[in-house]
């Protein structure tokens, strides 16, 4: 069976051949479009078995959730590759292909081993993408790699606990080692406390890398969470806290890319809440939100990317160029803004109201409203800079056609979903009994948006402001300092004196003799 993930990895191998630009375009287009088509025709219920050592692996297993996620991944992959094909170098394109391929394989994997292997492959390829991208990203890439490997090792440990407790690697229900799975997922989806990599990477890395990473990294975490640890109610509050934290942090940023990355944390909060409810409606709401979020967040990243590409900086001031010089970009940005703010008849609205409808606890409902309010407030700031503030910037470079093409694709899709919200349901047979255009829902969807406009107009000078003191505290760096200091002390003991070394050896001998002579199982 042909799987989209392996198609992408084959593409990466094909790109290893010595080829010229034209063939590069053809190969990339064929692979990405092919993967989309293959994903589209996957039939839920199919699976493939493989014997590997003593394990039975299921490298591909399709059901409706994974098909939905796979479709949006493949679609966004097509757009992202088209967007970045002119800008990025050939080695980076290979890495992007491996990254997308492994993300797709994670989505379709049917057992924990395959999941882990490709989860780790995602980490490796994305880290090298960051490290190789430019000279400013070396330390960031180092940080990102370590953090994600720590997360995936936690996943591995969870898998081991699960495997030794149940003896099977199937993806169904997690019985042992839930905390470790949660840590792994938390790192991937940038939960508060594990989020430190995210603003760092998305602001330092070149914009096309940020686009590709923002599509897959956190979303794979959400998908795996839906798969493995759905329905833990307490996590809904955690998601809420994470999102509120994201709002506060995002409002205090001076860089557009950092704002966008904190806003990912907010949006992921929605999905966490949806998944933690555990009902079918909640989970499908979360998955739909995943789809919508990929669409508008990618468009926003792409738009900012165009701005960065044309002006060379990513301050808020530079966004003003959009209105005057970049028509396509500004339309796409507007659509994406309305989507992310949850305005009815745009795509964010459908999934937000789905999640809200599935909630039963008043506190969470209230929190959800607060999150929507915060999000739209956040992006009003964005829009203010882009469209209402005068700017005198000039285009340094024209954006390439392929960039606009990739952005356009996603915008069209967004508008389609917004107008006809049942499109996603029909596509994957995930039916939710929900009328999107009921007055009650439209009103409750509009409320936070209108409030936020009001608040924005009233308190504009507090919101639109350059902050000098940025909150930044990183406990992982403290831990790293501890590790380095320990190593330094230890290496100081190795001062080259042979006498000392011999003394160590003799002491070891005596200890060994004591341990063995007095039969000391119990000591250790």
């Amino acid at each position, binding site marked *: 069976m042909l799987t989209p993930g392996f198609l992408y990895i084959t593409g990466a191998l094909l790109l290893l051949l010595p080829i010229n630009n034209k063939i590069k375009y053809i190969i990339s287009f064929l692979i990405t479009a092919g993967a989309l088509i293959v994903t589209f025709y996957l039939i839920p219920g199919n699976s493939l078995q493989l014997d590997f050592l003593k394990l039975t692996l299921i490298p591909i297993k399709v059901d409706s959730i994974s098909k939905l996620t796979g479709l949006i991944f493949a679609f966004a992959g097509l757009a992202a590759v088209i967007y970045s094909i002119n800008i990025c170098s050939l080695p980076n394109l290979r890495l992007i292909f491996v990254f997308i391929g492994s993300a797709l394989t994670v989505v379709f994997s049917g057992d924990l081993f395959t999941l882990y292997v490709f989860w780790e492959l995602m980490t490796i390829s994305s880290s090298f993408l960051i*490290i190789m991208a430019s000279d400013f990203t070396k330390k960031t890439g180092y940080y990102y790699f*370590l953090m994600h*490997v720590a997360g995936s090792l936690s996943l*591995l*440990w969870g898998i081991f606990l699960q495997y030794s407790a149940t003896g099977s690697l199937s993806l169904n229900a997690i019985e042992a080692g839930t905390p470790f799975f949660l840590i792994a997922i938390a790192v991937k989806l940038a939960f508060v406390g594990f989020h430190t990599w995210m603003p760092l990477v998305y602001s330092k890395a070149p914009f096309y890398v940020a686009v590709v990473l923002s599509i897959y990294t956190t979303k794979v975490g959400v998908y795996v969470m839906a798969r493995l640890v759905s329905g833990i109610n307490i996590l809904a509050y955690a998601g809420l806290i994470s999102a509120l934290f994201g709002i506060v942090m995002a409002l205090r940023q001076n860089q557009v890319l950092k704002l966008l990355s904190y806003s990912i944390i907010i949006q992921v909060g929605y999905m966490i809440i949806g998944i933690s409810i555990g009902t079918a409606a909640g989970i499908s709401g979360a998955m739909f939100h995943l789809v919508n979020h990929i669409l508008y967040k990618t468009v926003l990243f792409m738009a900012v990317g165009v701005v960065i590409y044309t002006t060379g900086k990513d301050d808020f001031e530079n966004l003003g160029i959009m209105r005057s010089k970049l028509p396509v970009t500004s339309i796409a940005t507007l659509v994406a803004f309305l989507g992310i703010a949850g305005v009815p008849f745009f795509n964010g609205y459908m999934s937000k109201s789905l999640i809200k409808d599935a909630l039963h606890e008043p506190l969470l409902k209230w929190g959800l409203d607060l999150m929507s309010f915060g999000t739209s407030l956040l992006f009003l700031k964005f829009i203010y800079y882009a469209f209402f503030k005068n700017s005198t910037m000039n285009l340094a470079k024209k954006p390439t056609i392929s960039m606009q093409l990739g952005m356009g694709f996603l915008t069209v899709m967004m508008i389609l979903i917004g107008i006809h919200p049942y499109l996603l349901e029909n596509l994957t047979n995930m039916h939710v009994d929900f009328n999107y255009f009921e007055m009650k829902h439209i009103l409750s969807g509009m409320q936070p948006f209108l409030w936020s406009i009001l608040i924005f107009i009233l308190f504009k000078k507090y919101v639109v402001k350059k902050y000098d003191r940025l909150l930044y505290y990183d406990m992982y760096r403290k831990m790293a300092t501890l590790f380095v200091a320990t190593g330094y002390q*230890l290496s100081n003991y190795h001062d080259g004196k042979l006498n000392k*070394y011999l003394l160590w*050896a003799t002491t070891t*001998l005596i200890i060994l003799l004591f341990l063995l*002579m007095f039969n000391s199982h119990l000591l250790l």
Partner: protein
Amino acid sequence: MEAAVLVIISPLLTAFFLGISRLYVKKIFFPLVTGSAIIYLYLLILVITNSYPAKVYSIGDWGMLGINLMVDPFSSLFLLIIAILFLPFIIFSMKYTKFIKHDYFIFAYLMIAGISGMVLTADLFNLYVFLEVSSLSSCALSLQKKTDRGIEGTFKYLIMSTLGSFFILLATILTYYLTGTLNMAEIPLAFEDIPFKIKSTIMAFFVFGYALKIGLIPLHAWLPDAYEDSPIPYNVLSSGLVMKSALYALIRILYIMFGIDFLDESGMLTIVVFWGVITFLIAHCLAFQQSNLNRLLAYSSIAQIAYIMIGLFVGTEAGLIAGSFHILNHAIMKGALFLVVGIFNYSLTAVEIEDIKGLGYKFPIISFTFVVASLAIVGLPPFNGFMSKWLIVEAALEADFVYAAFFILVGTFLSLTYYLKVIVTLYTKTEEELLIEEPGLSLKLPTIFLGSLCIVFGIVPSLPLSLMNKIPKFLLDNGEYIRILLGG
């Protein structure tokens, strides 16, 4: 089964002939070295393919009265490592060695002879003799550069390894005193009615002696010193074979002579697993501090050996398979890493991490090999190191060493910190103009060969594992080994 003895004899003969050729006929040097390496490879493959069922070769046709050689899957694993590493080593060294070539190759062949002797012999004293051959010639190889640091490191190595040898000899003599025989099959039979305390003390001597040569912390201090200024191709063999051959001897002695039951009863398994955990944690901490590439790789070797020890000493079938697999993988991965460092050293005399800045763009393929091998040694999928670590952790969990399994993962994280440091430096652009002597194909080819094995064994691990699946049969139950040795 004449090939078994020829595996030991042919490198010896090559070394002796090289000694003559050095003085009289210098022209035959090149054909002699390469020709005999190829013949040797053929012999090794012959022995490895015939290794199952296990075979016994009696030297001098004396049966149990004399010395026997035995080929079983565990020893053929080591022959496999020799087969994989030796020809790349020879090809690499031909170009790399700028100093006196003859001596270098004489010692290399002597060392290989000593190691294959250690691996094949089934006699305790013979093991000691071949251990001396291999460690003395290994010292000689690490001395080759004759620099201050090289000599100092060799002296430390010599002192420590001789101290270890004395303890091994003491234990060997005591074993003879107690049992009246040196044959590895008869000793366990005679050992049965020896009191517990005597046995455990003798075992402590064996463990101490070999642990000195393996380099478990805190017996490790000589090891980075010996690596720092020695010829780099030698480091490939040293970390891949010399350390491992001591490990082999330890496993042979503990599992065959003392038996798994005694190991369990005396708490040896618990001790070694705990020791291994301590070792790799400290070694990772120390490796992070190093600025010299050779030292960094040496500390990493210590840590990897600790993983192997944990795998081999959890005392289950899965653990033995996992440990053996990691022995093979570590030899390949560390070989590839050292060869890459060797190329950098050859081209621009780089030894410090700072010196290799920006080389990732100048040597794309070689640097990629480095990346692959280092990710493999860290234990990330889809490379071979991941497979063996997975198996080790699984085995440790199965045998209820949960803390060991957990700390292996912690260690994986710690090892990433310093390997990534090197990789990032490798891919950092620099403005400096580098003086580059272009490495030829004979340097690149062995490196790429080992690097590609990392990927192949990661994707198709069943290839080597089909050999290793038979190992536990001969180690876990020493009855099988004894029966074959006595019956042959």
